[in-house]
């Protein structure tokens, strides 16, 4: 019921519709990647290198003669996968920590939240690089690193909401009716704290994709020859004077994707909780 209401409200916002459409297209692209790509994204052809965009290669070719369009398409799958898994990790871990901390309060709250504060105190990128230095480079480890970095954000947001929901009459009623902690949290607390978490998920997806691109740019994320937008940007940087298309198209792909997730996140925020909008502004955007 509530979900349908939200969607109906969301469709009143034209920007949200555009953002949603872009993301649906992106997901379709990622899923169908192999059949959509006109060429093999890792097939090299040195004699055909650095070709400018043409009908044969819409986005041109890179320094090893690979088709940039096919690589951008294949990169969509990489970016979305890393984004989704990383946010999934931080979502599960962060919400769990936030629920426990907010619901039980006292020293449990103190310990968990101070630990999150410690994680939160490091700049996100530095933290991710440190994690990758320990785990070693690679896209799987990049997912884990990004997931760890964004966990405290979800923990904080969940805890903040749980703190207010915990004092609601229906929670106290459930407790006096003899409901156990697990049932109260699962049936009464969690459903009432989802709104800010959904908004944060959308925005975090944008940042996770950006982080993956940044990590791949510095060589710690996706490894060659697999295409990743960040990696393509990094490779294209060295050829910017000879072949602008190598960096511009993956750059545009990152730009459009991140923008779409952000716009959708904003629209969701408006729709889900207009009153909390100003209160949320502080927690939503800074990673």
């Amino acid at each position: 019921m509530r979900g349908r209401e939200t969607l109906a409200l969301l469709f009143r916002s034209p920007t949200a519709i555009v953002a949603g459409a872009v993301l649906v297209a992106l997901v379709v692209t990622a899923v169908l990647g192999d059949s959509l790509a006109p060429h093999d994204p890792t097939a090299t052809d040195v004699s055909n290198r650095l070709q400018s965009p043409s009908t044969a290669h819409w986005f041109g070719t890179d320094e090893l003669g690979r088709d940039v369009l096919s690589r951008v398409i294949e990169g969509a799958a990489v970016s979305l996968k890393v984004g989704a898994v990383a946010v999934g990790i931080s979502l599960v871990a962060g919400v769990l920590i936030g629920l426990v901390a907010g619901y039980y309060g006292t020293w449990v709250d103190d310990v968990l939240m101070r630990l999150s504060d410690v994680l939160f105190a490091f700049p996100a990128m530095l933290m991710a690089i440190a994690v990758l230095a320990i785990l070693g480079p690679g896209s799987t480890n990049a997912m884990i690193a990004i997931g760890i970095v964004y966990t405290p954000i979800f923990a904080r947001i969940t805890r903040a909401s749980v703190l207010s929901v915990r004092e609601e009459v229906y929670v106290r009623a459930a407790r006096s009716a003899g409901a156990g902690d697990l049932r109260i949290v699962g049936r009464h607390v969690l459903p009432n704290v989802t709104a800010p978490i959904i908004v944060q998920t959308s925005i975090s997806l944008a940042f996770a994709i950006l982080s993956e691109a940044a990590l791949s740019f510095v060589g710690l994320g996706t490894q060659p020859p697999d295409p990743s937008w960040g990696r393509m940007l990094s490779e294209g940087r060295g050829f910017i004077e000879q072949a602008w298309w190598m960096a511009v198209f993956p750059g545009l792909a990152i730009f459009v994707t991140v923008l779409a997730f952000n716009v959708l996140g904003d629209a969701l925020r408006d729709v889900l909780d207009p009153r909390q909008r100003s209160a949320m502004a502080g927690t939503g955007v800074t990673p």
Partner: protein
Amino acid sequence: MAARAGAAALGIAALVSACGGGGEEVDVDDGNGTSGADQGGGDGDAPAGTLVAAISAQPDQFDPHKTQAYASFQVLENVYDTLVVPDAEGEFQPSLATEWTTSDDALTWTFTLREGVTFHDGSAFDSADVVYSYRRIIDEQLANAYRFASVANIDAPDPQTVVITLSTPTPALLDNIGGFKGMAIIPEGAGQQTDLATTAVGTGPFTLEETGAGGVTLARYDDYWGDPATVEGVEFRYVSEPAAALTALRSGDIHWTDNVPPQDIEGLQDDEEVELGVTPSVDYWYLAMNQTRPPFDNRDFRRGVAYGIDREEVTEAARFGAATTNQTAIPEQSLWYHEYAPFEHDPDQAADLIEQTAAATPQPMGLMVTDEYPETVQAAQVIQAQLAEVGVEIGIEQEAFATWLDRQAAGDYDAFLLGWLGNLDPFGFYHAQHVCEGTSNFQGYCNPEVDTLLNQAAAETDQEARKALYDQAAELIVDDVSYLYLYNPDVVQAWAPGLEGYEIRPDKAINFETVRLPE
């Protein structure tokens, strides 16, 4: 013998004035020189000032005996001297030693040292400094100790004479003690008395002044034994981004850079704001497989890989044509070059050999590369595509260089791509990499026949016989695929139009002693 040295110095001076536009300028130089000479800034008409050079990497330290980083040697080349020094053709010329003689049995080398040389701290240079420097490398087992493997004794019978006694004849001795500034002469006791990692006490044309996170400054050493440098100083700036280095060069912020990726060569050739220098180098790049691990220990498997690789395509991908493919280590321009190319690109033969010897189909093979040398990453992707067609599935493992070196040293790899830089003598090209117990034999190659040949060649004093031995050894090394040689790259450097007296060299030694800034 000072005459010989004097002649050499004159030779350089003549070269400079020839480049600088002729005798007229030299006359003016004399006229102005007297007034400014005391300040050390009097270069006559030469535009006074500091040469600014952008280098791509940061030196790890400045101890010439300990560092192995090319960035360090770019700086140290201008600060330290060796007994002998290679010219642009790789022939050894007098430097701190003015002449040398070899005994009939080729076991005793006597070097006469230059007189009137002082270190940057003012102390006089004599034979004790030479003995100390060499003993430091040998006794502390430093990186270049292997270059003294055949040295039995180093004596200083008088302050101007050094006698090196050998256990076996070593025709490569001059290369071993003078091939690069890793064999520099430091003052006696400097290893204990000064922190050579951050300061420098050399005899070269420039003194090391300030070292910082962004660069290094050198100042002209006015008591230099040769003609003092034309410029007042040199500033090395660390610019890792090639585009930034080129922009700085075009805008006049810097005068010189070696941070020119090969893909930029074509565009720079017609660029009037940039003088481009491209010349074949003595470096070589190769692929090595871990011969302690199956199936890479199987010679036929390695030969399969060698047939499966199209060198032309790899070279084109990695170097944009700024390289020459080679199946041996030594480049065409060297007098030690041996033409030998048994491997034609032949996917069918490759697939057969690999199928017979592989442990799995397709055979997985990790290929370790480093972004420190981006050409290894590019080459790896092409090699991956080529070998996929002959039954080898390459997993590219891109590592930070420090991790890369650790894994190489630990033998924790299937295969890797890297290069050897700056070798002149075939001993440097082949010996430590391919003798069974060689200090650089990380791939675990061992062929007793090659050992015998390399050891004989190292002690053979007749140059023709020596070359014949190295040629035989090289053929075996190539046939066994101890290294899979790929190409010899070109040196690519760019400088400001009007910068004179700079010589681009195959060994990539960067010497600013005779450089004159543009007007």
